[in-house]
């Protein structure tokens, strides 16, 4: 009755119509749930979930690995950076401290009319039984034996050996050192002598003289080595023996010799330096 061609055409049209109706109905969510869908979902979903989980896990592992690698790299890079920053910071701190010390020295040099040579302390005495230091300036910088060495806090000592580029300084705490001095307030005269300890002795002050704790001792200038009026130290102890002519006065130097890093050598303190 129908030719083969006709049957194919009708079948095709029917398929298109059913398909169209089905899409239309399902698009309007009017199609009832069917068992096929549920079965299909139940069968496939576990595999999908497994693969998805695996993929997710793999992705996570991958991401964590890469993240760890990059974090480790970043960590070491940051550590290197931090150590550099710390080093720079430390250097800046040192420069700041040096700047403060040098400012103090500059202020001091401005306050007095002497010609100075600034020097750095490079070494200390090899034995604790002598109190000397080595500085990095010498005869090439016009330094001679017997020149006073000072800092803003007061008298340090005097040059005892001078080489071309280095000099050795005898500190006022050495037992061989003596500085002709005065008690600032009462003008009592004496000699500050070292005894190889942290303290010095103010010798030859008569027993009758009134020296009290805290009195400032300054250089008298009579010894022709140290300029007049420089701080030497302050009195920390006074002992008066009954049968002694002189009193025993212990002086704490105004300079902390353990922390000495830069000093000034007064190469010319007899004539005022030229002010620009």
């Amino acid at each position, binding site marked *: 009755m129908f030719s083969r061609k006709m049957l194919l055409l009708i079948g095709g049209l029917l398929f298109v119509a059913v398909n169209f109706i089905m899409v239309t109905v399902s698009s309007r969510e009017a199609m009832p749930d069917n068992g096929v869908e549920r079965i299909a979902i139940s069968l496939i979903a576990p595999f999908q979930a497994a693969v998805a989980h695996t993929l997710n896990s793999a992705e996570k592992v991958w991401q964590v690995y890469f993240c760890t690698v990059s974090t480790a790299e970043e960590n070491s890079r940051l550590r290197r950076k931090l150590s550099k920053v710390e080093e720079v910071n430390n250097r800046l701190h040192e420069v700041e401290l040096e700047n403060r010390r040098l400012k103090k020295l500059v202020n001091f040099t401005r306050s007095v009319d002497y010609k100075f040579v600034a020097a750095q302390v490079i070494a*200390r005495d090899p034995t604790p039984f002598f109190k000397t230091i080595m500085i990095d300036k010498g005869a090439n910088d016009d330094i001679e034996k017997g020149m006073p060495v000072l800092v803003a806090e007061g008298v340090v000592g005097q040059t005892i050996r001078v080489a071309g580029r280095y000099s*050795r300084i005898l500190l006022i705490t050495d037992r061989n050192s003596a500085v002709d001095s005065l008690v600032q307030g009462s003008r009592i005269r004496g000699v500050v002598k070292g005894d190889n300890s942290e303290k010095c002795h103010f010798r030859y002050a008569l027993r009758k003289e009134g020296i009290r704790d805290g009195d400032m001792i300054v250089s008298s200038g009579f010894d022709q080595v140290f300029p007049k009026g420089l701080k030497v130290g302050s009195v920390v102890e006074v002992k008066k023996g009954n049968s002694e002519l002189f009193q025993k006065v212990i002086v704490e130097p105004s300079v902390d010799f353990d922390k000495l890093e830069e000093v000034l050598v007064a190469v010319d303190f007899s004539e005022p330096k030229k002010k620009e």
Partner: protein
Amino acid sequence: MTFPFFIILALFLIVMQTTVLPEISIISNSFDLVIINVLYVSLLFSHPWVLGAVAVIGCIMDSLSGSPFGLYLSSYIWMYILVQLMKPVFFSRSLFFLPAVTVFSVLLEYLFLLLSVFISSGGKGVLSLNFSLMIKQLLWAALLIPVAVKLVFIVHRYWDKGCEKLFEKRRLKGSV
């Protein structure tokens, strides 16, 4: 190769003593480290050049110190003589030999120190010396100098081996 080793060791010890250790407050008053070097060369050699080397190092120390010139020079020369005198008397590999030599050497240095202080400041000056520090130094020296000398022996051995290898390499390069 002993001479350069001696010079480098002396330089190292002097720099340690005068520049590094004073900055470390707890060991700022250490014993004379150069004694290690003096004892080492005196123990190892009896050749006259050792006396010259010891004298040179004594002069250097005298120049670097505020001590009267000759204190270290005399001390070191007498240390050398002391070691040479003690060598035949004691068995030099004895456990007590090195500590004994050390104690005598440090005492010798103190003797010269006392003498120089006595000459410059009299009996009062000697009494004002820090004797407790001296005793501490002596004890530390007796403990550490023998160890340090042994250590120097080992380092010297490695130094010699290293130098031999270096020369061998250079010789081979030269022959190629």
